[in-house]
């Protein structure tokens, strides 16, 4: 009955009016961020971090606010998928496949409500899963030494690289860019600067928030300048929103099944929510067979990816909290938040700061109900948000990014570097080089090197020490499989193209 007493502790933290208020604010902001095309969960959370930090919120409050934003963004992503046929974030891509046809058939309201309920089921079950699984995984994590951690980081980069790009060399290159940047700065053991090129500003290293905001938010501006913001008008009409009970009931097993699939996909370090929604959709499509009519606007085709992607969002929190290895781009950003707040994720977090973990879990449970309320009866408000034109939205996002980074460090050098990362992000995305491994590299580079160094010190330079335990060997095998397998499975795993009018 450990869990119950822990939950009681969590709800004690989460049910204070202030925390509740933050959770509701976070849900609202998150849904907007998710809904707006060009402002996904990763950059939404990223530009909010500096601001949260300067507001001086304590660790629990900041974490509650940001994870509420994170969950909210996962809910919100479906709105633009269904109404605009533009995924608000990457995992919502699969929702466009059936959501947009259903909306075009005059059932936009039904599609929104059904996907909202599916999101709720996925996210709720995943939060329960997180609650049950995370403490036991945290106990396993105590068995991890430097060799195991090094292998785990390899696994994260390999599976992320394997899934994120169509070209292994490019995703490995992206990871190297990130890791290479992470090495810049004063070395912790010798106290001497490394790879700074003599620039004093680089002695502190490159702040990952600068890189994240640059790569995600500033790069987005360049894409909009290129396209002149043409692609954002609502093509379907939304009349009355009613609750399609029959569709919800008929998709109940779909939702349950895909929640499990999504949750498992989310737990894999590096794989994340995109994989979750993809696998969920594909599983249901093959269960339904060709008669299922997937791709023509069937309820199951909407419920499956939404339950899957929200479950994966919850699942991705498991490795992030227990091992400190994020499962997706957005959890990487959340990890950055934890580090900024001076919380070290990992097994000790569960024993030393239980109020943070269980407060977080309890607020996630609460946030889910808030989000269900916001996304079903009040969905029309968020549809209005979609009408904000790109020529106001993007300059606004840019200015918020600048102020956020500026208020964090007050340094023009960081701002210039952020612009540089924006340009880099644009070029990388144009060349189909994924940017998430870059972020992960900057974020985890220091830890990864630390693990390697400690392993080398312990073994007196013996390389075989890295493969000295069954856990480490298992992780290396998984890493190599995760990196190599997608090359051969490319034909099977081909992503379906979004429907064009």
């Amino acid at each position, binding site marked *: 009955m450990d869990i119950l007493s822990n939950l009681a502790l969590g709800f004690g933290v989460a049910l204070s009016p202030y925390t509740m208020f933050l959770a509701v604010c976070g849900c609202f902001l998150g849904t907007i961020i998710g809904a707006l095309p060009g402002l996904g969960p990763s950059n939404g959370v990223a530009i909010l971090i500096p601001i949260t930090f300067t507001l001086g919120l304590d660790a629990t409050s900041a974490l509650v606010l940001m994870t509420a934003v994170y969950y909210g963004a996962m809910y919100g992503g479906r709105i633009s998928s269904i109404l605009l046929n533009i995924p608000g974030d990457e995992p919502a891509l699969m929702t466009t496949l059936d959501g947009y046809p259903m909306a075009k058939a005059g059932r936009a309201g039904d599609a929104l409500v059904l996907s909202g309920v599916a999101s709720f089921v996925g996210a709720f079950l995943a939060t329960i899963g997180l609650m049950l699984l995370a403490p036991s995984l945290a106990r396993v994590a105590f068995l991890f030494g430097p060799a195991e951690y090094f292998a785990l980081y390899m696994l994260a980069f390999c599976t992320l690289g394997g899934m994120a790009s169509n070209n292994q060399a490019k995703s490995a290159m992206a990871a190297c860019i990130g890791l290479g940047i992470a*090495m810049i700065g004063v070395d912790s053991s010798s106290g*001497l600067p490394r790879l700074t090129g003599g620039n004093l500003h680089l002695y502190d290293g490159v702040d990952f928030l600068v890189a994240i905001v640059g790569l995600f938010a500033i790069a987005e501006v360049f894409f909009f300048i290129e396209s002149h913001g043409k692609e954002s008008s609502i093509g379907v009409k939304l009349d009355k929103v009613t609750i399609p009970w029959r569709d919800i009931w008929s998709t109940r097993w779909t939702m349950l099944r895909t929640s499990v699939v999504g949750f498992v996909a989310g737990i894999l370090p590096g794989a994340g929510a995109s994989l979750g929604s993809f696998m969920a959709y594909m599983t249901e499509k093959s269960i339904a067979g060709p008669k299922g009519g997937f791709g023509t606007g069937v309820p199951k085709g909407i419920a499956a990816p939404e339950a899957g992607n929200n479950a994966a969002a919850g699942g991705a929190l498991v490795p992030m909290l227990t091992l400190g290895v994020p499962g997706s781009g957005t959890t990487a950003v959340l990890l950055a938040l934890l580090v900024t707040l001076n919380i070290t994720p990992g097994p000790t977090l569960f024993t030393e700061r239980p109020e943070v973990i269980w407060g977080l879990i309890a607020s996630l449970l609460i946030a889910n109900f808030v989000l269900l309320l916001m996304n079903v009866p009040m969905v029309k408000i968020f549809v209005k948000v979609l009408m904000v034109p790109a020529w106001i939205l993007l300059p606004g996002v840019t200015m918020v990014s*600048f102020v956020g980074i500026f208020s964090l460090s007050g340094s023009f050098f960081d701002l210039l570097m952020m612009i540089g990362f924006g340009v880099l992000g644009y070029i990388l995305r144009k060349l189909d080089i994924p940017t998430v491994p870059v972020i992960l590299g900057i974020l985890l580079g220091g830890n990864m090197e630390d693990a390697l160094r400690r392993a080398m010190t312990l073994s007196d330079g013996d390389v075989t020490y890295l493969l000295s335990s069954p856990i480490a060997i298992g992780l290396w095998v998984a890493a190599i499989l995760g990196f190599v397998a997608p090359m051969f499975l490319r034909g099977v795993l081909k992503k379906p193209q979004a429907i064009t009018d």
Partner: protein
Amino acid sequence: MASDRIFGLVALITAVAYLAAATQIQTNLFSGEYLPKLFPILIGGVAAICALFMMFRPDPEPDWPAAGSWINMGVAVVVLAIYAVMLKPLGFILPTAIAAGILSYQISPRPGPAAIAGVGLSLGLFALFKFALGLGNIVAYRIPTPAQLGDAFLQLIPFVGGH
């Protein structure tokens, strides 16, 4: 094709330079001779291999924007860079209004709405940051001396400013 090859070549040169810099990393008694160099050398090595792969097995060419869009994006970079260094000497409102206005114009080229967007965003965000969120180091406006402005611009030139 060509894009991947060019990027691969640039990446290869960077990786080799990175490797060269990594072998020159200073060490001392506390850190040991090779530990601070080990991981950077590994990264440089892997990056060089990936760069070679990109050069010899390039993907199809991405659809790059037309020349006009490139100029537009270049202008945006310059505007943002100037904005970054002007934020301190001039305060928040004026640079933000100008920068947001220009960006807005670049996304949707209509002068009137762009100007309104710039001024509106500047004032609205200032109110939000200053009064609703209470961020400390946001100042409405400052009147700089010419010397301060000159300094700010010098910071844009690498290796000159920045002290």
